[in-house]
């Protein structure tokens, strides 16, 4: 019997359960926590494409997360003050529509990933980790040295962007959008993983020489994966800025990149619902221990150590057993 289906169903419903429970017990803050879980899970699902399937340990995905956040912040600011972003050659104004913001986030992050990926993917292993970190740091310093959009102070998002048919100003309305985005992200991950592209990508992780020896060039496969991965993470970034009503440079920090990797390892690398499991656990630890002690990260470190030493497959691996490869 394959236990991964019931485990996945439970994990998929967990954020909804927390949000509904929060409403039932009149604890609105937990709706925010559930929303945070959904957004971080989406960001990590993006990274899971590159890291989990392709074995590309990007230590720079915070850059794409931040690009999404700044896209949301910049577009919303311009929309509020009705200032065009560009006046020449065509006039482009701001927008407070989520789909439009996401489109911009996805395109910009995709282009940046294409450029940085084309260079980073010429290396592998530790060098890849370091070069993705270096690119992300460059983008981070670019953001804090750009006074027009807040510089080091970050950029506040004056009003939360809107989504057709949903009142995103209410916590549950916004949660619904984020959770919907997460489900779409997880579905995209599942479809890609099962496809020919996904097969080639997973083979690139397992044995690049084998992939090349059957006639598939690993570089292009990995580059496309890196770009798609960045795009998903960017959408999460846009939602994160909307959640906090703030696009902070810290979204682009290396600590953020590290957190995304931690989420994946906690949840189960390459597993469909690994990022969800990781995000739920991470946000709960952060909330429960973070309230009690300043040193909550110490406990997170211990848990991470436990997972790496005793449960390599993360939480999903622990609950559902090993993945099946057909």
């Amino acid at each position, binding site marked *: 019997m394959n236990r991964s289906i019931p485990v996945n169903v439970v994990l998929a419903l967990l954020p909804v359960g927390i949000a509904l429970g929060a409403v039932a017990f009149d604890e609105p803050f937990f709706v925010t926590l559930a929303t945070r879980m959904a957004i971080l899970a989406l960001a990590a699902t993006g990274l899971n494409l590159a890291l989990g399937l392709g074995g590309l340990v990007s230590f720079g995905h915070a850059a794409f997360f931040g690009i999404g956040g700044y896209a949301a912040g910049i577009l919303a600011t311009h929309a509020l003050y009705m200032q065009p972003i560009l006046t020449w050659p065509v006039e482009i104004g701001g927008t407070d529509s989520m789909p439009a913001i996401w489109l911009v986030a996805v395109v910009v992050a995709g282009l940046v990933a294409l450029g940085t990926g084309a260079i980073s993917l010429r290396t592998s292993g530790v060098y890849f980790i370091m070069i993705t970190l270096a690119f992300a740091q460059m983008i981070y310093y670019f953001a804090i040295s750009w006074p027009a959009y807040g510089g080091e102070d970050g950029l506040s998002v004056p009003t939360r962007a809107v989504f057709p048919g949903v009142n995103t100003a209410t916590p549950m309305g916004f949660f619904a959008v984020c959770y919907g985005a997460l489900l779409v992200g997880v579905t995209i991950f599942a*479809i*890609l993983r*099962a*496809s*020919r*592209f*996904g*097969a*080639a990508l*997973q*083979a690139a992780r*397992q*044995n690049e*020489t*084998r*992939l*090349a*020896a*059957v*006639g*598939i*060039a*690993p570089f292009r*496969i990995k580059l*496309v994966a890196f770009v798609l991965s960045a795009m998903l993470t960017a959408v999460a970034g846009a939602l994160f800025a909307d959640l906090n009503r703030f696009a902070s440079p810290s979204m682009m920090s290396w600590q953020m990149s590290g957190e995304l990797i931690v989420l994946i390892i906690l949840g189960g690398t390459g597993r469909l619902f690994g990022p969800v499991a990781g995000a739920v656990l991470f946000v709960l630890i952060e909330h429960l221990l973070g309230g009690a002690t300043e040193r909550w990260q110490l406990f997170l470190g211990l848990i991470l150590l436990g997972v790496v030493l005793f449960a390599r497959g993360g939480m999903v691996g622990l609950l559902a057993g090993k993945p099946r*490869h*057909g």
Partner: protein
Amino acid sequence: MADPILAIRNLNKSFGALKATDDVSLDLRHGEIHALIGPNGAGKTTLIHQISGSLKPDAGRIEFMGADVTGLSLSQRARSGLGRSFQISSLALEFSALRNVMLAVQSYQGSSFRFFKPVMRDASLIDPAMAVLERVGIADRAHVAASELSHGERRKLEIAIALAMKSRAFLFDEPMAGMGPEGSKQLTTFLDELRGEAPILLVEHDMDAVFALADRISVLVYGRVIASGTVDEIRSDPEVRRAYLGEHAE
């Protein structure tokens, strides 16, 4: 005589001071098995790596089906029909045997940039992959992870992958190694039939197999081809006997 399908011309490769390939020229003709023999460390694998595109030669030229492929990568040469196996088997270890072969079928069919249809429900990938597993005799192990296959099964899987690519020429690096006498015999029969489909450049230490199979043999010693000819010519060549064959030649 028709042009050879594979022509290696004046290939040279050094690792530091070590000359691993020393001005090697050899041909693979249509329909033949050309065996490459030589002592350990003679440079056989290094030569296969250069022909397949895993290693760049320092100098020389490789022509495949009339085209210069010296500048092409491993994946480009594979797509143009040059299939190889590895001396130390090189597989996607987490994937099942079937999925390893399906990857080759997928490559042969064209683009891997197909993002929607699940491979495990794609009969156009599964059926040809099962058929080659059947041919090499490991169809019953199709759903076993490559990491859990026996040594001999992995060797067969490597050959199945090369078959699934519909290769126009095969480069096999010691396919018999560690197969056991029964396995070697089976594989000998198999390769004997395979040469009709595509010629084989066969690196092998198992002299019974080489003498049974080879149309021609080249002997590599210290990176250099010291002799090349038919089985009988090589068996009676005094220099070859001294350098390598010794007790095998009787």
